[in-house]
């Protein structure tokens, strides 16, 4: 028998079995959805994520059991952001839209001009120390208003920490929802923005038009 002649060689499975059966990608969708549900039920869904389309491009939304932990612009590289979440929060990361339904709806309303503030639980664990203090202050800047980095520094009780306010805004893990786009330079210029200046301009325009 030909198969026994050279026992050290690999058996030619493909000659008899053909290639490994093809699996259409959509075939796994319901299995994946069930897995995400079961994971949430068993407390194993440490980070749930989904993407949404928006006027400032595709946004990645990620939430822990405590709340929204990350909003990321496409320019940050969604895959890179997910990798960092796996390292910093937990590798138990799954695409699981259900946990993000509320924030997705609120973002839709915001971009449609029907919402002025967000009402979802936030998990600020990616931000620590002074940066976190700044993030706590930012939602106090009302929709359609702006503050300067200097004003924010004073508001959080560290009037000389203007640059630190700048880096707190630049590393805001929850852009749009925590409105760092409402912070400008004292001369009225935009300063920087994680999602690019076009995105910052678009958000400010949206809020001044509404």
């Amino acid at each position, binding site marked *: *028998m030909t*198969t*026994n002649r050279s*026992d050290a060689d690999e*058996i030619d*499975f*493909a*000659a*008899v*079995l*053909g*290639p*490994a*059966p*093809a*699996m*259409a990608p959509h*075939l*796994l969708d319901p*299995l*994946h959805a*069930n*897995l995400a549900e*079961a*994971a949430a039920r*068993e407390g*194993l869904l440490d*980070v749930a*994520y989904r993407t949404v389309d928006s006027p400032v491009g595709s946004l990645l939304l990620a939430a822990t059991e405590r709340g929204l932990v990350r909003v990321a612009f496409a320019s940050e590289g969604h895959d890179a952001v*997910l*990798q960092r*979440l*796996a*390292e910093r929060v*937990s*590798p*138990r*990361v*799954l*695409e699981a839209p259900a946990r993000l339904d509320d924030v997705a709806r609120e973002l839709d309303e915001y971009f449609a001009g029907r919402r002025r503030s967000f009402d979802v639980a936030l998990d600020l664990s990616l931000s620590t120390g002074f940066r976190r203090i700044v993030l706590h202050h930012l939602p106090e800047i009302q929709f359609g208003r702006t503050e300067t980095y200097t004003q924010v520094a004073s508001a959080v009780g560290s009037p000389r920490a203007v640059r630190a306010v700048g880096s707190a805004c630049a590393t805001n893990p929850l852009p749009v929802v925590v409105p760092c786009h409402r912070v400008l330079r004292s001369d009225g210029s935009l300063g920087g923005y994680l999602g690019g200046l076009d995105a910052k301009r678009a958000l400010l325009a949206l809020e001044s038009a509404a």
Partner: protein
Amino acid sequence: MNVKQPFERVVTQHGPTVLRVARAVVGSSDADDVWSEAFLAALRAYPELADDANVEAWLVTITHRKAIDHLRARRRRAVPVDEVPERASSAHDPAGRDDDVWAHVKDLPEKQRLVIAYRYLGGLPYAQVAELVGGTAVAARRAASDGIATLRDRLPEKTGETA
């Protein structure tokens, strides 16, 4: 340096392989359950998995454990006479285009079937296959070889025109 990927990538990269292995071992009707149980168990254990581990081999091992649970449970409730319908149901399997071949694989003795699934579909070396099915690597290879020989005999029309 190895860093652990988000589990989502593990599911996307290895989900199809796990489903193929599960189908070959327990058949289409139970394969979805085996897939789900395997990935849930993998998700649970994932943070403790060594960063440089072979993820696919690890998943095939977990799939094997879940599949064996199903085979045992089936044996407990099945009346021996009733083993036949599997072949009929796999004909309606929407994914597998080589239904005929895999239906014949399901009729092989369990050890041969498992060895072919873990070696050919799961990509495990025979030494690791042997750890799962028992016996030595040489015996595992022989079981695969015997299984393939049987399939060759049962599928005479296929062997001539495999290309």
